[in-house]
């Protein structure tokens, strides 16, 4: 049995999106051209823009198509060190950026780079469930703060933040608010007006659309500075001939989400409940990471005492089950997940964690198969482990 439980990494195309893309391959015109070929492409790009804007409650002019979620995040953060007058006014006075310790690397590393370029970057702590510390935010919010960037849903543990409340706090102090909603859009209801945010990032490939296409919401009236210059595309906000096929796919992906999301998320939540209870029943000395309620429906992150994450991942892979690990040993770094460490679990526990992320193609049979394979796998690893003493291992938050 082949089981794909790594939907937070990326998702398979929705069959309807696939159909749209195949049909769309006939379209090759440049949307900037005035002839018929160009007008066809333009019509499709703008149709997608309307769909995406509708889906998040934005005006179509407020939407910039970009090359990825990472690009959108880079664009927003970089605005705040741009010194020219057409960009965010007064940013040189407000040179402090606040973000969190659990952001995606594309935010964390960009922030670190901005710090080298003169910005004052502060990182918010989170509690044991991964929720941002609002008191700390309040105390950090001074007149020097230009931007606050807090992710809406965390990719590793699934924890959802209260963006609406955070945005109110941020706006009261005159700063701008960005949320990386790559893992949230299409999984939980997102309305930019209700949230009140100034910038919001989304990406197609997490919601059954194609890779390499994202969108950035920029609230109307906010000064802006493109990351990629040299073209009038996207109203001068992102140069480069549009990825027409990608944009078409993103439009179709959100259209399908608007039809399927509500029922789908309910179903995933039920599956997660079954999975969680099953793991609890069948395996000792475990710890669930993330918030018990305010969390993505399909995401479950769990630590196993005495079992190393990469070994778990690869033994499961041999059984046809794809999950991911918090510890990034496989990617060359031996550091345990920064997200788990931020929630206060110790390094050892963080090394022994896996993320199971289900999606629209996940089934009860697959969950049952995992529940059959996982206990044996963990037992097998623990049997050869120097670090497992039954009941004697502490796996816990702080």
């Amino acid at each position, binding site marked *: 049995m082949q089981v794909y439980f790594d939907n937070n990494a990326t998702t398979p195309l929705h069959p309807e999106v696939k159909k749209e893309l195949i049909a769309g391959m006939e379209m090759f015109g440049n949307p900037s051209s005035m002839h018929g070929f160009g007008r066809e492409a333009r019509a499709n790009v703008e149709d997608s823009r309307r769909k995406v804007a509708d889906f998040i409650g934005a005006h179509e002019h407020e939407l910039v198509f970009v090359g990825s979620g990472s690009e959108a995040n880079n664009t927003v953060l970089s605005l705040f060190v741009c010194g020219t007058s057409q960009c965010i006014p007064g940013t040189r006075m407000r040179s402090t950026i606040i973000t969190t310790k659990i952001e995606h690397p594309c935010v964390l590393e960009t922030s670190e780079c901005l710090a080298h370029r003169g910005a004052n970057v502060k990182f918010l702590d989170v509690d044991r469930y991964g929720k941002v510390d609002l008191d700390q935010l309040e105390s950090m919010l001074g007149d020097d703060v230009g931007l606050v960037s807090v992710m809406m849903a965390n990719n590793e543990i699934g924890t959802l933040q209260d963006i609406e409340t955070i945005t109110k706090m941020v706006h009261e102090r005159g700063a701008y608010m960005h949320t990386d909603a790559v893992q949230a859009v299409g999984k939980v209801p997102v309305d930019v007006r209700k949230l009140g945010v100034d910038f919001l990032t989304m990406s197609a490939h997490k919601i059954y659309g194609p890779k390499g296409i994202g969108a950035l919401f920029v609230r109307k009236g906010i000064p802006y500075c493109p990351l990629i210059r040299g073209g009038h595309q996207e109203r001068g906000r992102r140069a480069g001939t549009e990825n027409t096929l990608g944009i078409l796919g993103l439009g179709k992906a959100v259209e399908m989400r608007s039809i399927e999301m509500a029922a789908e998320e309910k179903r995933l939540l039920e599956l997660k409940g079954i999975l969680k209870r099953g793991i609890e029943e069948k395996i000792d000395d475990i710890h669930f990471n993330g918030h018990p309620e305010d969390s993505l429906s399909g995401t479950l992150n769990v630590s196993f005492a005495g079992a190393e994450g990469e070994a778990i991942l690869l033994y499961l892979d041999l059984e046809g089950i794809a999950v991911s690990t918090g510890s990034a040993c496989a990617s060359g770094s031996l550091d345990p997940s920064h997200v788990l460490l931020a929630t206060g679990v110790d390094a050892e526990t963080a090394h022994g964690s896996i993320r199971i992320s289900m999606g629209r193609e996940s089934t009860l049979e697959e969950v049952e198969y995992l529940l059959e394979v996982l206990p044996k796998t963990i037992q097998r690893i623990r049997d050869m*482990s120097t670090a497992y003493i039954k009941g004697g291992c502490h796996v816990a938050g702080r």
Partner: protein
Amino acid sequence: MLQAGEWAYTEKLKEHFMSPKNILQGDNTDDFDGVGMEGNLQCGDQMLVAIKVDKEKEVITDCKWKTYGCASAIASTSILSEMVKGMTLDQAFHVSPKDVAKELGGLPDHKIHCSVLGDKALRAAINNFYSRNGMDDKVKEEQAKIVCQCMNITDHDIEDAVLEGARTYYELQERTKLGTVCGQCKDEAEMLLEKFKHIHFGA
């Protein structure tokens, strides 16, 4: 379109990962003649190696192990435990991570780190055998030697930095902060850098 490779590592590694050889059953090492433990859980890997020795011939007759570690650590220690059976203690002591990687048909550079642990634990077990048997003169201490006095950086720190990816003096400095005060240690550090690159990566 290309199909997915069957496995991120070599077939040989997969074989040893799927059915690791010579795992120590339970925690009791009383029957063994030498025991060594290396690594720590905070860093995500730990290794225990226990050996039985024919004391007349100083030959390893059995080698068992346990680990908290990734696939590379499991597979490389499994193969190491097979390799050293029948070797003299001296031969076994000189088996290098490179020899193990070769047996496995190669390891990605960033995974060498994980395979070094089995090696280290084996040497610790051999030393443990020597000291238990009153052969302290044979114990080959792997004591760290301070290279950079200012920043208190040892040759072991340099070795670790190389295993984690440092290839140039600059990268070594970035990782360890060595040579950032008086700069006196530069020549020795560069020499060690080349040495460890050669030992671990044949470069």
